[in-house]
């Protein structure tokens, strides 16, 4: 197993390199540059823009630009923001990454504790009332777009009922300790539910069909023929097998959550990476965009890596390939 994990880690490094090339290439392919949109002002001498471009290194050949960027990135230096003058990109990201991280963890947690038990129950009692209810919710969750659900949630729970805050990540800056924690949690509920809706729905359906498949398998019949109790058959023999594909999906979920967070954070004006990303795109703040793209890509790869590693732990058949 260790051999497998080490091999997997070694593949991770070249994958990161490919990722940097992608991120860089994508930005190059996008039309315009940071100066675009500002050089229409007739009162400014075009020479000024030219000098600015020169200073930012935008006139260097592409491979030189790439190399300069990558070597800096490897040292943890993502450059300065074009828009927030004098501020490091890593500083800007650092201020907000915590919030996005909380949102992601909260969402993942909700997704897992809701979808997996319901999925199991639906499989245990297929075509029961709860199963039909879950199916209906599943279609709803997959069909309704994130942002729309978010807007409706704000309308109902913040504006009409006034139960939960509609935006931000804290109410007042002075809070500490448990109060701060509870306040932050309150701010997470609506964005978390919004972000987790589709995932919860699909995990629930997936878990249901996975458990049903496993319950029909020969080795479950063997376990029953050995006289194992229903509890044991379900929670030991079935679950361990049904979780294997779920774990792989959870790895992908890391990337899905992060990209989903961009829209959701926008809807709730939640001060995370997503809102920073949206404003940076509007401002053509290239260093920030590249850093966030790189980060998204990195977490997607990391999620897949973790999924592979977990997979090799729960499924003994993987270890000997």
């Amino acid at each position, binding site marked *: 197993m260790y051999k497998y994990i080490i091999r997997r880690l070694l593949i991770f490094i070249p994958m990161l390199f490919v990722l940097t090339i992608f991120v860089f290439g994508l930005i190059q392919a996008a039309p315009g540059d940071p100066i675009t949109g500002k050089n229409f002002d007739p009162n400014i001498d075009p020479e000024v823009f030219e000098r600015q471009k020169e200073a930012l290194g935008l006139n260097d050949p592409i491979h030189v630009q790439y190399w300069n960027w990558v070597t800096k990135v490897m040292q943890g230096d993502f450059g300065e923001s074009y828009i927030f003058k004098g501020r490091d990109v890593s500083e800007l990201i650092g201020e907000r990454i915590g919030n996005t991280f909380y949102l992601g963890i909260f969402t993942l947690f909700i997704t897992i504790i809701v979808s997996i038990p319901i999925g199991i129950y639906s499989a245990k009692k297929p075509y029961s009332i709860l199963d039909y209810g879950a199916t209906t919710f599943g279609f709803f969750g997959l069909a309704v777009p994130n942002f729309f659900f978010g807007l409706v949630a704000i309308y109902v729970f913040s504006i009409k009922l006034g139960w939960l805050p509609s935006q931000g990540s804290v109410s007042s800056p002075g809070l500490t300790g448990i109060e701060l924690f509870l306040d932050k949690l309150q701010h997470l509920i609506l964005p978390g539910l919004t972000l987790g809706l589709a995932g919860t729905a699909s995990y629930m359906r997936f878990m249901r069909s996975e458990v049903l498949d496993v319950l029909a398998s020969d080795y479950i019949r*063997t376990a029953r*023929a050995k*006289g*194992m109790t229903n509890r044991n058959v379900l929670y030991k023999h079935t679950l361990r097998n049904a979780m294997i594909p779920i774990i792989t999906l959870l790895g992908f979920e890391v990337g899905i959550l992060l990209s989903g967070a961009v829209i959701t954070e926008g809807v709730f004006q939640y001060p995370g990476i997503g809102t920073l990303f949206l404003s940076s795109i509007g401002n053509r703040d290239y260093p920030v965009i590249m850093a966030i793209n790189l980060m998204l890509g990195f977490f997607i790869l990391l999620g897949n890596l973790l999924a592979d590693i977990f997979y090799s732990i729960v499924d003994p058949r993987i270890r000997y390939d």
Partner: protein
Amino acid sequence: MSEVKLLEVSGLKTYFHLENKAVAKAVDGVDFYIRPGETVALVGESGSGKSITSLSIMKLINKPGKIEDGRISFGGKDLVGLNDKQMTNVRGKEIGMIFQEPMTALNPVFTIGNQIIETLIRHKKMTKNEARLRAIELLKVVGFPRAEETMKEYPHQLSGGMRHRAMIAIAISCDPKLLIADEPTTALDVTIQAQILDLMDEMKKKFNMAVLLITHDLGVVAEYADRIMVMYGGQIVEETTIEKLFLTPKHPYTMGLLDSLPSLEKEVDRLGAIKGTVPPAHRFPIGCRFSDRCPKVMSKCRDMNPSIYETDAEESHRVRCYLYE
């Protein structure tokens, strides 16, 4: 032979209620018994109801199937009346079962050791360590020389024959009085087949188990069984000792089965082979279920299904056919 009966099945009916309202009568009025320590074979073509009969005894019939009627008396208890929880104390402990598919019958994510140990802990109230030692012993008995290492291995690391041995170890781990083997060797090649059957026979003698051996290989039957039951269309059509079945078969279906066996004297004369196929369990003919294929069919055969007739006063030889009315 003693007349004490370990298992006595009477009037067993297991039906499947299909979606289009049709009813598949997979097992339709089956009677038989097994004495302690004897090997009884159940043979018949694919779809004749052998597996459903054995799964009914274990009460492992899943929806849409259901035991509709009958008694399954085992060691004095009627299993049909037991609830699922009570059945878990019979399964694996008093009746062991091994299945046809060695590739998929063991749980892929648990070690062989784990799968034997959990059975012992469940039924024998052993501690983990006692169970571990007993499991190693069992693996040695069924032919794993490096049993300690095998304990830590996963099913995919064993060959088909080896997995079968592991299954046998699990099935006999709690000293069951009856072992049900549903086509235990069909998936194996011939030499391994013989080894596994010999092993089962050895275990049977060592632990004084009765065996219900399900197979469609009459050669296997001749070698290992004491008595034989031939099944057709969800019913038993002939039941007797091995000697009588091979020397004086009575049911036209049994004769057909024997004729289709390759034999030394007859060279390759397969003309006796039965034409046609088993009718599906939701569309049996009205009369004798074999009437569409029977070379000796008479007019009354098509009107009503014959009952089973005792044709031998000394040792049972039952035949379900109007020729022996």
